[in-house]
């Protein structure tokens, strides 16, 4: 039983770990942090498996965990930066939140970087559904589960996001 569970976890980890890592890295822009969040995501998934929790879609479940952990990380980082800024009166050490670190820039080449920059320019309600649909190939139902919206709403966001992306990139997307 225990062996089956481990095997199941390992197979899911093998398939999804890169996608989760990528998802984290493109949002936190730091390799170490992305690795930490990926590890935490899979740790929680592993604990859920051990507790016999009912999981309908492993993929959507793992992405949901990662999505929430990233939100938590941003919240923590924001409060830390504010403390830092208050400590230092002239604010010279203050780091811009969304600035890509050196490691982040090295990860992708010109087209990839351009694409992710443009996706990040989109409103957040379009940004995540669009990324999950086209980069991670998730279905609208899985995206709906991660974002906590209806399937219909997820599809609408994907389509509208696509139109917005076409406007700002000039790509002819079908």
């Amino acid at each position, binding site marked *: 039983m225990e062996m089956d569970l481990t095997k199941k976890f390992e197979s899911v980890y093998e398939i999804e770990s890169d996608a989760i890592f990528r998802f984290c890295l493109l949002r936190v822009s730091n390799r170490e942090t992305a690795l930490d969040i990926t590890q935490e995501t899979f*740790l929680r998934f592993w604990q859920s498996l051990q507790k016999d929790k009912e999981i309908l879609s492993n993929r959507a479940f793992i992405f949901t965990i990662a999505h929430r952990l990233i939100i938590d990380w941003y919240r923590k980082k924001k409060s830390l930066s504010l403390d830092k800024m208050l400590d230092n009166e002239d604010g010279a050490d203050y780091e811009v939140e969304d600035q890509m670190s050196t490691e982040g820039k090295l990860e992708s080449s010109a087209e990839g970087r351009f694409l992710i920059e443009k996706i990040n320019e989109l409103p957040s309600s379009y940004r995540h559904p669009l990324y999950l649909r086209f980069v991670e190939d998730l279905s609208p139902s899985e995206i709906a589960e991660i974002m906590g919206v209806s399937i219909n709403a997820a599809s609408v966001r994907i389509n509208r996001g696509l139109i917005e992306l076409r406007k700002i990139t*000039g*790509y002819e997307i079908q």
Partner: protein
Amino acid sequence: MKYNKLQKGIDELKSIKMTSSEKELVLSSILKSSPKIVKPIKSTWVSFSFMALLERNRLVYYIIIPLIIVLSGGGVVFASADSLPNGILYPVKVKILEPVEGALIFSQTAKAKHESNLAKRRLIEAETLAEAGKLDISTEDKINILLENHTNALNKALDKAVVEDINSKNETEDISTNFRAEMNAHARILDIITKKEEHKNENGSQNENQNQNIDINTNIQIKQDKKEEVAKDGELSNTARSSAEKVKDNDKQQEVKSGEVYVQKKDKIENLINTTDKKLEVHITEDKKFNNRKVIVNTSKTFNKAKSELEEADKKNREGDSKEAYKALLDSESSIKEVNILLESHYENEEKHEEENHNDD
């Protein structure tokens, strides 16, 4: 061309991966670090537990939980039934329990009876508090408002009862004369208690002054304060008397009764006067036997008033003014009922002492 650029961008993004060593490291740390979750061992007695019962049958939720709520709520309501105006549960009694009771009564006559009883209950509560020396100004105001509300509700119910059923007139008359008698009698009882308390307080403050030699000015101030409170105390009995008058005014609106009804009513009142007279006789003889005191003057006055009102009714009837005659008859009935209430209450003795003290003075 541009579409290819998009695909190329996506492919480049997809090429972002963990290194195999990172993958290994993360996997091994997850499998090592996570402590094995031990499932709790089920007790053999669990199937008999209350929670197990809830888990087995969800329907129990819908029965037991509302039952608990009803029982605990019912407990509070039950406990509030005997609460007094200065108690915590008193608002539950006057704002929930009594209105609900009233809402469940559909006949207007019964509703009028209910309101009359509630008004009586308010005065008894005031008497209980006054006797314990706990009737303060705010409580008195509270009771005053409630008493006025009950009187208004009673008047409305009496009006509706007559419209609803013309045959219920005799019953509504009874309710209204009873109410007037109760209000006047309890107003008098309340006055007796208030005077007694006032007397006690005066004696108390005099003793205190003698013992402690307090400054004269302070004494005057204390006396004045107490007088103000006493003066305020009279308000409730005044409200009770005015409530009785309100119901009396309501009676005036009634149409002229036929001769037969008048005779029946008169016979009833005469019987009542005779039995009350006997009761008074008993009181006089008992009084003479034990301590040779004079009988209650005020109660006797009310008794005589009842008699004279009856005579007046007869006179008016002979003159042909049947409306006024019937009115005087109702006044007489109310007065004689008031005498009965006073005789039955234990406060008559107090009044006896009062009267005797006045005579001695």
